[in-house]
């Protein structure tokens, strides 16, 4: 929530403003926010790892996790990082068609990932793993749920930028508008790069 606020804050303000460091203020701010988010996800991941084996009642990781589905989700998120970086490339070159194409693909990937997670959660609940069934379930849903919320916010954010791009509001001089959203998006991807092995593969392979 704070992420979206700060990136949108001075949406048009400081591009041409004097800055002490050779970096746009909003870009510095999103990096600061990303640094802060490291501690957010570190705490959630720690909680998950501590409670990973607390499933005396109800299903545990080996009963519910399936590798193919999350691998697909992981691949989609990785692809979307590639797509958004291509879209940014297009924005910086002033290539509208390139920008629109790749950005559309990015947003679709985000939607697919969120869909994948909704499907996964529904599936787990059908398997008898509710939010409060055991601590493994609670910490799993909390961690991946908050990651999914980040993906959803990122998708919305990139969606508004897609609308802007469509209306021609992202010329090369304003490519930084997309760049900060892309930085946030990559960070969300990087968190998943940790969640995928630590939460899924390591819980299965023991």
């Amino acid at each position: 929530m704070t992420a979206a606020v700060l990136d949108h804050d001075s949406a048009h303000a400081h591009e041409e403003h004097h800055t002490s460091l050779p970096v746009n203020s909003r870009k510095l701010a999103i990096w600061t926010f990303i640094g802060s988010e490291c501690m957010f996800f570190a705490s959630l991941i720690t909680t998950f790892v501590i409670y990973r084996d607390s499933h005396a009642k109800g299903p545990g990781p080996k009963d519910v996790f399936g590798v193919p589905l999350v691998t697909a989700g992981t691949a989609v998120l990785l692809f979307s990082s590639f797509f958004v970086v291509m879209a940014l490339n297009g924005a910086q070159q002033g290539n509208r068609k390139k920008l629109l194409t790749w950005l559309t693909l990015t947003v679709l990937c985000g939607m697919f990932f969120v869909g994948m997670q909704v499907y996964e959660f529904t599936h787990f609940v059908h398997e008898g793993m509710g939010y409060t069934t055991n601590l493994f379930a609670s910490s799993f849903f909390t961690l991946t749920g908050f990651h999914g919320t980040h993906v959803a916010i990122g998708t919305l954010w990139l969606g508004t930028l897609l609308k802007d791009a469509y209306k021609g509001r992202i010329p090369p001089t304003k490519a930084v508008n997309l760049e900060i959203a892309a930085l946030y998006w990559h960070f969300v991807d990087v968190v998943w790069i940790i969640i995928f092995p630590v939460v899924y593969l390591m819980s299965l392979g023991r």
Partner: protein
Amino acid sequence: MIADTAIVHHAHDIPHASAGKYVQIASILFLLTAMEVLLYEVCFGHLREGMGSFSVALAPHFVSVLLILSAMKFWFVAMFYMHLKFDIKILSWLFGFSLMIAFVVICALFVLFTYNRTLWWWSGTW
């Protein structure tokens, strides 16, 4: 492999690599993910039967190899897609410092939590 990449500097720091570079990184990331899944399948999954002694030898190193593979993916995304390699150094310091504090706190909490249950570095169980 990096030195020949065209790095374009605009008036106000919009450094970026070429599109070709991005494709290259995407392939590497994809490959590393495939290796992660393969590693799991060899050690514990469907390929375990067929691999015999190789699986048995690899399984104890599953966690460390997996973490190294993810760290590599992390590094590629941060350096190239997030442009840390081309951007001003303070951003790398910012991210690096946060990651270090996060990593140390995770490890410390982990030790503190397992300490009373079992001395994990003696018993070898995580």
